[in-house]
């Protein structure tokens, strides 16, 4: 596996806070969970109505999604298994090479 399979089960989730209360709730959630913010680059830049794309490790996906559901914050899974997406990206190359 690439990267020693470190991203197996990791997910990329898009969250769209629609109020300042939800922005604050997100910041609280992210303070306790290690998430890798893809967009925006830091929690300080999260804005009402702005998409937040975040990469969350497999051990935290359940906790994060439970927290989002509890807070009724709209979210969707963009990438359900990061490792397989990475493998797919490079897999394309090896198939090209074979061809």
């Amino acid at each position, binding site marked *: 596996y690439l990267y020693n399979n470190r991203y197996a089960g990791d997910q990329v989730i898009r969250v769209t806070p629609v109020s300042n209360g939800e922005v604050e709730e997100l910041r609280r959630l992210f303070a306790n969970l290690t998430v890798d913010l893809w967009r925006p*680059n*830091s929690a300080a830049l999260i804005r009402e109505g702005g998409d937040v794309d975040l990469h969350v490790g497999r051990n935290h996906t359940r906790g994060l999604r439970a927290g989002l559901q509890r807070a009724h914050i709209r979210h969707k899974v963009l*990438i359900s298994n990061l490792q397989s997406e990475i493998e797919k990206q490079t897999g394309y190359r090896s198939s090209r090479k074979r061809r």
Partner: protein
Amino acid sequence: SEFQYDYEVYHSLEEIQSWMYEMNRTHPHLVDMFSIGRSFEGRPLYILQLGKRTRSYKKAVWIDCGVHAREWIGPAFCQWFVKEALHSYKYDSVMRRLMNQLNFYIMPVFNVDGYRYSWTTDRFWRKTRSKNAKYQCRGVDANRNWKVKWCDEGASSHPCDDTYCGPFPESEPEVKAVAKFLRKHRKRVRAYISIHAYAQMLLYPYSYKYATIPNFSCVESAAQNAVTALYSAYGVRYRYGPASTTLYVSSGSSMDWAYKNGIPYAFAFELRDTGYFGFLLPETLINPTCTETTRAVKTIASGLLKKCP
């Protein structure tokens, strides 16, 4: 045999550097390759200068890619642009005119240490790989380390944050090397373009404040013409405008520094996509993304040859 290089896959740092040597070797009249310094881990910071060699004074365009390690589509674009410029010089009158009247300084990988780390260890690494005296965390955000409103809003002073501004401005050898080069060539560099991902935007100053730049009308129309040219390729829409209102406020950015340093046209591209794949933009989308962006960059460069009223 013709040098076989696949521009539609992502390449490691080593592959990109050997490609640069090959471009330099095979195009002696249009390419000059040199290093402007070394990274924190001691790797050379290579630049390709594109353009017909003449004794006369030429304006220049600076394009850097790979400031943030995980944004792989950036280095892919820089390689694509060089390929297009060299291959189309003979038959594309616009590109030939640009290469005859301008020089292009292309930096395919700005953050060489971080890019290599994103290939070997952490695919989503963003920062440089410099060490911090007091913390275990490594790296500085190379787009928060410039000497312009340094470490103010939109940057973090904590070494473990992804937007860490560094211990002092230009603390990163990579940033210092590019700043030194652009300061030295400030009279001739008329456009600064930094390639990032993702969001599908074309941004111009200011990032660090909500204010209008003095030459707004010229820059705004250049940006509008560029996104129109980009759209003409595949109908992909890019938003454009001042970074502070179009994306978010951030201080210490290279684009603001370039503008403050006297470069009248400073832009940052946020290439595809808007989040479906994010940093994992598939290799199948390298071609259309780079094709449309090349049209936009050619439009910006062509605008430099005309006088803006």
